[in-house]
């Protein structure tokens, strides 16, 4: 999709010919995120029009107890230390950011008085700063007022490397300063088109300065507040047992009128996903269960009981296969898969193209992931195809055979194709996980029909996803021909996400396999466009560049996206929860309510 096409689409949104939702969906289809689409519209003069979040109760309280079930228990309650989603969710009950993202990529103010725009002088023309106006009258749970000092302090806290905050990436290159008690200016080192990162969403939760001031840097782990959060959120802290449960009660001084609805909140953790689904959908013991990584068939059976339903939200996670651009069988200077080598099979574009035709995405979605994933339209550039709801992916064994035949790969006596003495055999690895193994089997079968012999390999998740430099089975080592995993996009802006195909990010021995480019795919043009996009201030031009980058990666067939995975939650009947795939499930906890 070119810049011009994007502009036309935006014009359609402006005149009302295209709905905002349809536009956002189309942007997701070409590999962008909903928040980025929202930013693009905002810059082109279509205001962020967050739909009013429906809320029926007429007074705060009276809702009884709200019971949430996390099959991975919350282990800590400081959002800036949160290693996994579960901890971020737990922290979000108590802490709040300046703004969050709704399902359609709108920024929704939480602790901010308004969303910065050019019209309200929030955004500087040169893209180097953004001014946040803070909501007045907000109190911390201990009664102290919330001011700009807290926001500036949070920046200071997170950016200090010794604090070892996981949110450091959002704060280390920006500068936050207090303008007055309720105004904060965030300045960027270079023009930054994507400004809504620091203080927004997952990594944006604000900490109270008066409780953390003495615990910045190396002392961060000693802060008593790490275990007894004092935030601005809708519920007050009662008790926390790491790895087991969090108890909270209604905050009578919450800064939004008539909220929250529930009197107490109970978050229980542990166990497994299937029984968590049962506890909500079948027995109704709990109101909400997080991250239902359960086969859709089982969820449907449980839902049939009529006690609850499953809520599915599109997110930026993509399950994909990468083909190694380098040769994992040859050792050069003490490392395999060195960039000095080229893969003996995959360096032939015909092989990559054939493999792409042999992946039965539709069946993988239908039979394995069900409603929890969408056969990936992501990374594709033909807008015509996304207009149809049931996007068809080509599984074409004849065509794959023809391509291989034409490229000179001839079938041998054993039915395996070979060329110049190289047999078309490769090893395909992934982590141990039932849906992944089923996917492997489907692809292996199709490849067999085209005369490609695939050997399947499975590695335990804790090894595969580790950063152990001594273990050759980790995914960044990629000492294998092909591998498959799910790449998460925690950041709504693709800038960081797309650095995984840069030539200077290649994972190798020198950087202890810390480099982000695991596939070792490289392209000079890609590098150049990426650098250009970093500086581009025009949101539309920039989006067009990212779409181009996506196309380059996928078009070369080294990266084969399979499915866009959705976030699935289970909700008991009667409960209204406002979930978004671009923020945490708890992002609108204050507006959750129950109807009889």
């Amino acid at each position, binding site marked *: 999709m070119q810049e011009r096409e994007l502009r036309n689409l935006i014009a359609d949104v402006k005149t009302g010919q295209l709905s905002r939702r349809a536009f956002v969906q189309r942007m997701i289809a070409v590999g962008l995120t909903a928040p980025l689409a929202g930013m693009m519209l905002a810059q082109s003069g279509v205001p962020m029009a967050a739909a009013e979040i429906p809320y029926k109760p007429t007074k705060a309280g009276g809702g009884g107890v709200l019971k949430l079930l996390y099959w991975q228990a919350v282990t800590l309650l400081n959002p800036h230390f949160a290693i996994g989603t579960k901890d971020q969710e737990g922290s979000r009950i108590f802490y709040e950011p300046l703004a969050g993202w709704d399902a359609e990529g709108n920024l929704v103010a939480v602790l901010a008085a308004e969303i910065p725009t050019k019209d309200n002088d929030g955004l500087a023309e040169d893209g180097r700063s953004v001014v946040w106006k803070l909501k007045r009258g907000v109190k911390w749970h201990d009664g102290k007022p919330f001011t700009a000092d807290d926001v500036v302090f949070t920046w200071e806290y997170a950016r200090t490397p010794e604090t*070892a905050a996981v949110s450091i990436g959002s704060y280390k290159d920006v500068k936050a300063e207090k303008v007055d008690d309720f105004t904060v200016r965030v300045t960027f080192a270079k023009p930054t088109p994507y400004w809504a990162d620091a203080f927004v969403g997952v990594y944006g939760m604000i900490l109270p300065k008066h409780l953390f001031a003495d615990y910045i840097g190396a002392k961060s782990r000693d802060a008593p507040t790490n275990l007894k959060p004092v935030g601005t959120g809708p519920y007050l802290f009662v008790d926390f047992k790491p790895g087991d449960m969090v108890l909270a009660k209604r905050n009578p001084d919450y800064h939004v009128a008539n909220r929250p609805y529930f009197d107490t909140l109970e978050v229980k953790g542990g166990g497994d996903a299937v029984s968590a689904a049962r506890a909500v959908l079948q027995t109704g013991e709990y109101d909400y269960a997080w991250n239902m990584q359960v086969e859709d068939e089982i969820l449907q059976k449980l839902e049939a009981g009529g006690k609850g339903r499953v809520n599915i939200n599109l997110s930026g996670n993509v399950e994909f296969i990468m083909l190694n651009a380098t040769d994992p069988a040859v050792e050069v200077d003490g490392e395999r898969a060195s960039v000095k080598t080229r893969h003996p099979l995959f360096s032939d574009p015909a092989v990559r193209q054939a493999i792409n035709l042999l992946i039965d995405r539709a069946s993988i979605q239908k039979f394995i992931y069900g409603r929890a994933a969408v056969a990936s339209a992501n990374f594709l550039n033909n807008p015509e195809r996304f207009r149809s709801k049931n996007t068809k992916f080509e599984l074409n064994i004849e065509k794959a055979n023809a391509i291989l035949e034409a490229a000179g790969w001839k079938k041998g006596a054993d039915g395996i194709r070979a060329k110049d003495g190289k047999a078309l055999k490769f090893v395909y690895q992934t982590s141990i996980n039932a849906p992944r193994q089923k996917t492997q089997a489907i692809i292996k079968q199709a490849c067999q029909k085209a005369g490609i012999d695939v050997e399947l390999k499975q590695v335990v998740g804790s090894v595969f996803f580790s950063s152990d430099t001594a273990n050759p089975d980790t995914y960044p080592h990629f000492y294998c021909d092909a591998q498959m995993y799910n790449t998460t996009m925690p950041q709504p802006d693709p800038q960081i996400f797309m650095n995984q195909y840069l030539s200077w990010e290649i994972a190798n021995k020198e950087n202890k396999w810390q480099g982000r480019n695991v596939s070792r795919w490289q392209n000079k043009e890609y590098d150049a466009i990426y650098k250009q996009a970093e500086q581009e201030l025009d949101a539309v031009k920039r989006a067009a560049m990212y779409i181009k980058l996506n196309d380059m990666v996928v078009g070369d067939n080294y990266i084969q996206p399979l499915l866009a995975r959705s976030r699935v939650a289970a909700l008991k009947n009667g409960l209204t929860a406002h979930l978004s795939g671009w923020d945490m499930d708890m992002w609108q906890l204050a507006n959750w309510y129950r109807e009889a």
Partner: protein
Amino acid sequence: MGKYILRRLLIALPSLLGISLILFVLLALAPGDPFGELATNSNIPPEVRAALRVKFGIDDPILIRYLRWLAAMLQGDWGFSFASRIDVDKLILQRVPTTLFVVGSSQLLALVVALPVGVYAAMRPYSIFDQIANTFAFIGFSLPTFFTGLLLILIFSINLGWLPFVYRADIAATGWQWAFEYFKQAIMPITVLGLFQAASYTRYVRSAVLDVIRLDYVTTARSKGLDESKVVIKHVVRNALIPVVTLVALQMPAVFGGAIITEQIFRIPGIGSLLIAAILANDTPVIMAVTFVFACLVVIFNLLADIIYGWLDPRISYR
């Protein structure tokens, strides 16, 4: 006697040291990385991960890390959890009451079932009662707890809807209501664990009683004209229970160690579920502390069992 205990304690020291060294090295060599989840997250620069590794001293040589751990342990510092960022001892102490309650009650239940059944079965060997008791005992310890646990959940929680299957340590009620709720949620896990243990205890009690009941002094007691209940309770059971007491003493570490699988199924926040969660998160300090405490308990209770044995049976002397 005092000399014997002292000697045993001195022997226990090097074996505990050895155990700790083996545990530590095994954990250090095991694959996995406590900050693995950060590695797949593009928002976190590799420097943060590196800083965290340095902060928690993961990159130092194993021996240095071990000595550091040992020195801290000797000063009563059990370490610091990577995952929860709090002290390990706090984490463990939070879990002890629940485990003591659930596993302790299940042991009591096991004894309450096994003693009368085992004794009665031994008094009438190969009777119908004995056959039935034996059959159930075999079924009992052949069925793993993860199976019986799921079976009970299926029947009592899902089909009948009588009992909750998510265990909560904090129940928001007081007085009788609280006790009732607590009892209700504990029924299934205690039954599963208790009956499993009861099955093997029954077999032990039965064979111990069988050994004793044929001895001459029992015949003498009977021929004196003592009534049967007195013979059994005062003369048979008392002697027969010596090996059983030892067995129970050796089971005590398990009461503290928790029941990993059952705790996981019922979401009981005990030591067992703490251990499994720590293993899954590669939270080495927690794994190390839990397993080491467990090792200490095994050594101590072994010693206790030996001492109790001699006290119960004066024929055994310590030299």
